């Protein structure tokens, strides 16, 4: 048995979420760990300390936009080359789209959104997040080959292993339609911290009364180095853009700190945020349901509390 991990790199450095996937693969104790990288990346030998034995590096300009079908072909080809019967990947826009294709190509069983290491006592069982964070399902996977996509922050990165990885060039074979989707434009969001990747999130709801009152929310977010988010009614009323909508039908976030301001805490909103490590709720209604799901609560008017919090952070040198 052996495990293949598809890793992504930004600005030549392997992403933290990919290091989590490497740690997951090493801790599976399922044989050698091979990493596959199709992005430009440096110092790949150092992946040895995460338990990687070999790195397969693909140098192909056509893969720079991470075209999903071609990435899926590269992953299936690499798995075949090294005889891997498990593929582990951290969730990303590419991985979420590629994993089911790899599953069909490899005749493998796919489990997405995996939050813990497998249990092997009674078959191969992984815990998946389901019902949008409202429950977990311990899911048994049949078959020889398995594909796992790992939820962000599912486990801590472990770089305590020693050794250096061998880096080899790998040239995958592509299918006739692997480049059927043409990228016509990419608009990178400048400046702001991106919500899905943010470690700190400041989120506000209808309690802010109108879009003109968001300056204090942005000031607090800037002070913290946090991303801004909002509840569904706020994006539905076009007070804030749709890509800030956090909740069951919007973006799900799992930051270290989620500060909810003027959000009552409808069950659909909670579903999108309840994986956050620490939740702070600021609401003038002491009966707001969100307080039941919070770690810290402040009953008070946002217009009064938020500037005070920004000031207190300033005073504390943050």
């Amino acid at each position, binding site marked *: 048995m052996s495990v293949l991990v598809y890793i992504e790199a930004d600005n030549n450095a392997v992403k933290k979420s990919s290091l989590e996937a490497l740690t997951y693969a090493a801790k599976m104790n399922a044989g050698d760990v091979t990493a596959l990288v199709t992005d430009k990346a440096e110092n790949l030998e150092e992946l040895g300390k995460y338990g990687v034995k070999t790195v397969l590096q693909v140098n192909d300009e056509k893969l720079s936009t991470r075209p999903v079908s071609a990435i899926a072909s590269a992953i299936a080809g690499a798995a075949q080359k090294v005889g891997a019967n498990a593929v582990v990947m951290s969730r990303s826009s590419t991985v979420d789209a590629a994993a*089911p294709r790899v599953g*069909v190509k490899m005749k493998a*069983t*796919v489990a997405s959104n995996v939050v813990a290491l497998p249990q092997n006592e009674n078959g191969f069982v992984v815990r998946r997040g389901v*019902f*949008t964070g409202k429950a977990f399902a311990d899911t048994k996977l049949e078959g020889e080959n398995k594909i796992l996509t790992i939820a962000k922050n599912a486990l801590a990165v472990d770089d305590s292993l020693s050794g250096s990885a061998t880096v080899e060039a790998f040239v995958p074979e592509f299918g006739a339609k692997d480049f059927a989707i043409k990228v016509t434009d990419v608009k990178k969001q400048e400046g702001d911290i991106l919500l899905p990747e943010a470690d700190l999130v400041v989120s506000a709801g209808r309690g802010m009364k109108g879009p003109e009152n968001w300056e204090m929310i942005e000031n607090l977010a800037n002070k913290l180095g946090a991303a801004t988010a909002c509840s569904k009614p706020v994006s539905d009323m076009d007070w804030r853009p749709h890509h800030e909508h956090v909740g069951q039908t919007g973006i799900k976030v799992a930051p*270290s700190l989620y500060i909810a301001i003027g959000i009552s805490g409808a069950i659909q909103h909670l579903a999108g945020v309840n994986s956050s490590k620490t939740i702070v709720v600021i609401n003038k209604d002491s009966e707001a349901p969100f307080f039941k799901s919070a770690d810290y*609560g402040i009953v008070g008017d946002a217009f009064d509390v938020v500037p005070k919090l920004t000031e207190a952070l300033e005073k504390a040198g943050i």
Partner: protein
Amino acid sequence: MNILVCICHVPDTTTKIKFTGTELDKNGVQFIIGPYDDYALARAVELKEASKGKLTVLNVGEADTEPTIRKALAIGADNAVRINAHPKDAYFVAEQIAAYAKDKNFDMILMGREASDYNGGQVHGMVAEMLDMPCIVPCMTLEVEGNTAKMGREIEGGKEYVECEMPFVAGCQEPIAEWKIPNMRGIMMARKKPLEVIEPTSQSAPTEVMAYQLPAERGNVKMIDADNMDELVRLLKEEAKVL
């Protein structure tokens, strides 16, 4: 334009999830069209109306999903297909959809980016791979010019705009279109629209849920006085260690 929209039948988003053994406790649970599928359906209705095309809606489910399918017909689908089986897992569902769609000449197969119950997000990619079609997910804008589909999706760090020739598969999410609420005329017409029931073509389902767990409850909330934000900052630094 000939469009297929695949919908799932899921608990309403306000549902408090409970289990009886390895089954969802359906007592008092309202079922709806999957919220992401509902966005796909809304955009499909717009494209169908603009092109005077045809819109088929498909669900893999047992007879209890028919009210959900009728709602999709009331929103604007022309005809419906129910593949008569419990949707055991993503692979099982994908095989049924691929088997149904392979000789129907659909220009596009749309569905939500994921079901809001099992959150697999796999069916679109599996169907596309089985039918050798491109697949875009999450598809957040969709326009058609001639035989070319132009789409936008969110990626890490921004937005990506892509195009491909039809046919294709897409897993949709907002803001591709706004949910449509059926009107009385739609509801009346939906009763007369054809709903074909066909049997599944294969049975393989490689995954099985052994047990469900509910997430651990958060400890009691610690209330802090609104005039003492210094204390909140201290707790976030020293107790929660998140600053």
